[in-house]
């Protein structure tokens, strides 16, 4: 019924119509049922034998109890505008242009479509929404009355002072002009330790979007410390790894590979470079039938002779 056509993989070489060849019985339905039963049994057995990983999510309360100094440093950083999210750029804010792929400012072109003001949304709003406290009320009033430069100076100085003491312990910080920031950061920690900070950041009964909570958690070092301890860092093949011995997204190996190259993984535009490199490979595979040279690889490396060995064996006597 179909006829032969010229093969794009063989230049002008002719590929015969498959329907013109001699046939043999082939039971597709039987193949489907047998394969289905075998794979279903294999799946059920693997699930029973190895199960699946389910480590509880880290709550902001967990974080505050396990690493209180990290919470104080992160809250201070949000107020100073020195955290990752505060200086991120699109899609959260205009603090920077973000990453570029060569001359292409793709991140900037995406636009600020998920606006997040790190100081206001991640720290001040929860503080203002929490249980009223006299010292916190005064601190917030002082903060609000100050101009932006003063606010930044207080928070930056306090952040530097925290970084200068062992473990970032607020109790060890040298005296200085930090304005209301120590009280605000301390109150933020208390709020986080009491639980419910997630809800104060996004007061929606149904939850759902966790952008602000995850940005805050990511701005601290605790989440990354936990991930790296499980070999999930980007330079640990973490994109395709899973904690423990569970299989992860192995199919992302091609992307993960690029992060292991220091020139890419350590670049300020590393993520964009990885996406660019991966896009080139994916496009190469998508349009492989039309790429001279690449489409001829299977002819040069005769794996096909193994696949069709019965056919070629039958053809030999005729030759």
């Amino acid at each position: 019924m179909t006829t032969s056509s010229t093969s794009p993989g063989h230049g002008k070489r002719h590929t015969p119509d498959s329907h013109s060849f001699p046939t043999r019985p082939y039971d597709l339905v039987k193949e489907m049922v047998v394969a289905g039963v075998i794979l279903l049994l294999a799946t059920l057995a693997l699930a029973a034998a190895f199960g699946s990983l389910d480590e509880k999510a880290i709550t902001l309360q967990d974080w505050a109890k396990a690493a209180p100094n990290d919470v104080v440093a992160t809250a201070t950083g949000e107020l100073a505008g020195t955290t990752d999210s505060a200086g991120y750029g699109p899609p959260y804010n205009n603090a920077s242009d973000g990453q570029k792929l060569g001359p292409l400012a793709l991140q900037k072109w995406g636009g600020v479509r998920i606006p997040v003001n790190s100081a206001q949304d991640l720290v001040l709003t929860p503080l203002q929404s929490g249980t009223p406290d006299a010292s916190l009320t005064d601190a917030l009033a002082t903060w609000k009355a100050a101009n932006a430069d003063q606010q930044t100076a207080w928070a930056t100085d306090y952040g530097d002072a925290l970084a200068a003491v062992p473990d970032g312990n607020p109790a060890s910080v040298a005296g200085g002009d930090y304005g209301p920031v120590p009280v605000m950061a301390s109150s933020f920690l208390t709020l986080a330790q009491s639980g419910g900070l997630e809800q104060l950041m996004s007061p929606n009964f149904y939850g759902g979007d966790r952008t602000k909570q995850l940005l805050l958690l990511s701005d601290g070092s605790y989440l990354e410390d936990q991930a790296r301890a499980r070999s999930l860092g980007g330079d640990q093949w973490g994109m395709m790894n899973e904690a423990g011995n569970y299989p992860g997204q192995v199919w992302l190996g091609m992307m993960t590979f690029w992060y292991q190259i220091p020139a890419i993984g350590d670049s300020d535009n590393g993520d964009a470079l990885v996406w660019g490199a991966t896009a080139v490979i994916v496009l190469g595979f998508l349009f492989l039938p039309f790429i001279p040279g690449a489409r001829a690889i299977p002819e040069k490396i005769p794996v096909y002779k193994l696949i069709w060995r019965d056919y070629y064996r039958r053809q030999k006597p005729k030759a």
Partner: protein
Amino acid sequence: MSAVEGTATPAPGATTPEGSPSPTRTSWTAWARYRITHTVPQGQWLPDRQPAYVASWIYVFGMATLVSLVIVIGSGVVLALGGSEWWHTSSVGHYVNSVHLWSVEIFFAVMAIHLWGKFWMAAWRGGRSLTWTTGMIALLAAVGTGFTGYLSQTNFDAQWIGAQAKDGLNSVGLGAWFNALNPATALTLHIIVLPLAVGAIVIMHVILVRRHGVVPPIDAEEPTS
């Protein structure tokens, strides 16, 4: 080239070599019926015979990919009935999640073998380039489905993957349109949008396979009767 190849549709109202009239110029319904009934040659939708050269275990992996996709969807449907957090608190739910995880791992494993098998067969020959491309698109859609599944776990894993993935997506502007830190979006894409996309592309891929038949061996000559 026959009507089945799609490059030489008979004149309107004419009778095809198979004996059925070709679509008229004015009737969309007739055109649709003609396309539906003639896209795949008669008898090739579910043939009980294949070309004699179809004799290798590598051919099984196409079917294995299809049936493993069915297991993935089936276990996912059960998980969806329990709700997104059911598997954290129920041992039955946890087992169903494990079945879903391992079915996905098997699905990708057999699909990778299928893909590499087709690569070494240069299976895009003979007008089959669209068959290859739809297979690759199905793989990409499946990767997206798997990724959104990992984001939908509502556990530590999902937190870390979301925190890391946002940087990659944002770096090329995609984060403005898909927020990896919103598990509600991820779940919706994972259980509705992307499975529909994978299903549609896989159906198109299978139709193309049945339409063109299994690619003949490299350097095969036209059989003489």
